[in-house]
């Protein structure tokens, strides 16, 4: 099992306690959901990207995230631009169609809101890797436990995440084995041909996973997983000065965001 996504670097983000990072992430998510003005959201996005840079994480991964996201982004933007009930009409494209709630106009507010919504999602998608890539899975689990998440649940969550690379490895192995036996061409042919070929990977993959899970069950129980004893932990986590600074910063930005919102700033 691997530390999925973790990139071993020495940076301020790597050194922060996993609890601080979890709270920081939540604070950013809340703040970004408070504002609907794209300018504010862009400002937060730049903060997040700055953190990527400071954490010495590969920025080209952000590009990969955008690539997968473009299609959905366009759909979200267009829907908002058309259907958001705005006041400043920009462009009339048809007569009103009340049946689907379309006023016939694309409004400035609609465009702004659509833009903000897309940018919010970009922020959400760039914040999550920031946590995963700077925190070993074992630290993340400990943080969850310290937040009173039941150990069993925290363990299953982090173990399931770290299982992904090994499942991927196995899928590749099966694909190679099947190709050697002349089963399936996974790259060409129409949709149905490829679907049939993928069954030859998925069947052994799923059956193998079931068998492995039983061995895993035996191995885990044999190591006293679920013993009716108060569990102890080898790893420790301590707040340092930087953690307190970041926690204070998170609280201040939350309060600040709420105040701005009450003053009707940052909203379309």
């Amino acid at each position: 099992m691997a530390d999925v996504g973790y990139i071993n670097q020495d940076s301020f983000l790597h050194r922060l306690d996993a609890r601080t990072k979890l709270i920081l992430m939540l604070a950013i998510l809340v703040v970004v959901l408070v504002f609907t003005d794209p300018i504010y959201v862009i400002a937060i996005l730049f903060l997040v990207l700055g953190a990527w840079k400071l954490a010495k994480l590969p920025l080209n991964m952000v590009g990969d995230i955008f690539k997968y996201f473009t299609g959905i982004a366009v759909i979200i933007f267009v829907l908002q631009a058309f259907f958001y009930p705005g006041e400043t009409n920009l462009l009339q494209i048809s007569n009103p169609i009340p049946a689907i709630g379309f006023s016939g106009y694309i409004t400035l507010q609609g465009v702004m809101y659509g833009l903000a919504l897309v940018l919010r999602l970009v922020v959400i998608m760039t914040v999550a890797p920031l946590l995963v890539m700077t925190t070993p899975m074992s630290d993340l689990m400990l943080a969850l436990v310290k937040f009173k998440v039941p150990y069993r649940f925290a363990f299953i969550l982090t173990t399931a995440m770290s299982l992904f690379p090994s499942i991927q490895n196995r899928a590749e192995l099966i694909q190679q084995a099947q190709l050697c036996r002349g089963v399936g061409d996974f790259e060409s042919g129409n949709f149905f041909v490829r679907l049939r070929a993928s069954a030859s990977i998925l069947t052994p993959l799923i059956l193998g996973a079931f068998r492995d899970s039983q061995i895993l069950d035996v191995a885990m129980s044999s190591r006293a997983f679920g013993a009716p004893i108060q569990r102890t932990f080898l790893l420790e986590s301590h707040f340092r000065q930087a953690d307190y600074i970041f926690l204070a910063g998170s609280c201040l930005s939350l309060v600040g965001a709420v105040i701005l919102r009450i003053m009707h700033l940052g909203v379309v």
Partner: protein
Amino acid sequence: MQNIIEVANITYAYPRTDIPALNNISFSVPQGQFVAIIGPTGAGKSTLCYCFNGAVPRLFGGEMSGSVVVAGKDTYENEIPVMAQHVGLVVQNARNQLFNVNVQCEIAFGCENLGFPRQKIIQNLHDALTFVGLQGYENRQPTALSGGQQQRVAIACVLAMEPDVLVLDEPTSELDPIGSEQVMETITRLNRSLGKTVILVSHDTEFIAQFADRVLVINDGSLVLDGSPREVFSKADLLSSCRIRPPQVCQLSYELRKKGFPITDIPITIDEAVTLYEGLQHG
């Protein structure tokens, strides 16, 4: 000497089958004994291993009768995690029994579950890693190790939990010769240096002849022979009917005896064989 394991009349069948995997098996093991279990594939050796901590029948289901008591704890009355304090189980597939992000977390896992104080975990982690000869591997990823190293990590994992008994189910069957040798050497020291009771399932009869105190032969779910390596490996016909390959020195001696050589005691190790054949040459 006090018995650490008491197995009485166990009969067990897996779910959805009428054919018992284990058939009325009884034996007891005194503390500190090195017991080897041999038998053909599908004889029920692994199933027997899973009985010691209650994984059979708790995890596998099925019907079981008889009783298994280890360190005074009955597997019927105690859950697997409770039995785990007394029985350490190392399974055949090294990779599937390691599921933590690094070796340190892997070994600490069992100790943490048993609620050992942190200082003790650190001490046991250090001792276990030193014992299996993998100091400095604390932060390595278990899946990135060689098969032999993985199996030694698996041994360290159960060793750190301070069990009375270690059960090892074909720990070397998937390993290369060097990996096997290192694992077998570790197992020997578990018994000889630490005084742990060891139950080892293996096809390596050469190793068993040299190091085990006692051999159990399982065939078709039944215990067909129980004795010292010398007693067991002298029974050429029975071993061959169970499709078990005895040590090569024994096979040679069986053949020589058939040819009329005066061999009364079958040698079971190379040293014994050398002495015997030198005697034959000069005599």
